[in-house]
């Protein structure tokens, strides 16, 4: 694989991490990160949608007229999200009940539409797929980190297993705690990028 291909893939990990650097898709990042299980499920679902929609939109870019590209993108994304939603409901009902409304809401996750508009609409199918994989991994990584600290501090548990015998610090379970952890994670990433 050429260097540039690897760059496209790893771009989303840290350098242009959709959540921590571009600060897109904050709603799911804050809402589902109360447990690692939820975060990984959300990450996997979003990654799947990102890869598939990037791939298809890049294939269709010569067919889709410029004037109506956004409705077309939304349509493609919504289709894949509905597919994911149905599959999760059918085969992973536990995940579907804990993620609830956030799976259908992937449709309006700005990461997905953002990548379609900024990348898949201008690049080749292969590059767009790589970009989808990279961005998906970056998103999953980011919400995993946030969920890791929120679950650990908020309920003293990891992966649902109690590891610290205390009740947890309440605020980390609630929305303000999500903002605090999110802020600190962004700060650390910024600091790492500066010192590098």
């Amino acid at each position, binding site marked *: 694989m050429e260097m540039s291909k690897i760059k496209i893939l790893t771009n989303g990990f840290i350098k242009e991490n959709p959540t921590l650097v571009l600060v897109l898709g904050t709603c799911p990042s804050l809402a589902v990160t109360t447990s690692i299980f939820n975060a990984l499920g959300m990450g996997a679902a979003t990654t799947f949608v990102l890869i598939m929609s990037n791939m298809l939109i890049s294939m269709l870019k010569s067919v889709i007229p410029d004037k109506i590209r956004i409705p077309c993108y939304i349509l493609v994304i919504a289709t894949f999200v509905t597919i994911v939603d149905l599959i999760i409901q059918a085969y992973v009902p536990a995940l579907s009940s804990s993620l609830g409304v956030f799976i259908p809401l992937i449709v309006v996750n700005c990461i997905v539409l953002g990548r379609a508009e900024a990348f898949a609409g201008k690049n080749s199918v292969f590059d767009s797929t790589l970009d989808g994989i990279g961005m998906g991994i970056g998103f999953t990584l980011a919400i995993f980190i946030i969920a890791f600290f929120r679950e650990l501090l908020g309920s003293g548990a990891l992966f649902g297993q109690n590891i610290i015998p205390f009740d947890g610090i309440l605020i980390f379970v*609630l929305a303000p705690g999500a903002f605090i952890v999110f802020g600190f994670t962004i700060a650390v990433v910024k600091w790492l990028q500066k010192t590098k």
Partner: protein
Amino acid sequence: MGKKESSLKQLVLSLTLITCIAAIALTVIYSMTKVPIALSQQKKKTDAISLVLKGFKGETKETKVLLDGDKDSVIIYFAYQNDSLFGAAVETYTDKAFDGTFSIMVGFDAVGNIIETEVLQANETPGLGDKIDKKKSDFPLQFKGKNPKDFNLLVKKDGGEVDAITAATISSRAFCDAIQRASNAFLKIKENGNEQN
């Protein structure tokens, strides 16, 4: 690539085409997942019924009840063993929850004592309100064996006998509300049924 000038006809055509493809894809996936989804929901329900009716094996008879002043009906699954009433599992809900509504399954024995409760669907705050689930805390265990007729189903703060979950009084109240609704429905049908027989 580059900007293409497209006529209205082309715009309509391409959008229609994409919509059709999307519709076909969704139809295929929907028909594929329809059965597993129904099965998993059915399984969840039958699992909950057998959990809250400990010791009962067999088929249940389903009855829907709408209580006065309620928006939604509750579903009662009557369990008969050797022609006598073993008890009933009641699928009940509350609209006073922190997150709006949640639904639970409550098992009663023939005289109306609570056997067990099971959370069916709830989005209460993790770490707080989600303690209504007995996997997370001992809160629901205090209802075991109690009869809502002589057990005051209100949290202690409201003058009742229920120990509320710390920092989740609303969820605790909602839980009591759901059980009360289940009990009312169960008693109503049981008494009516006896009169008819």
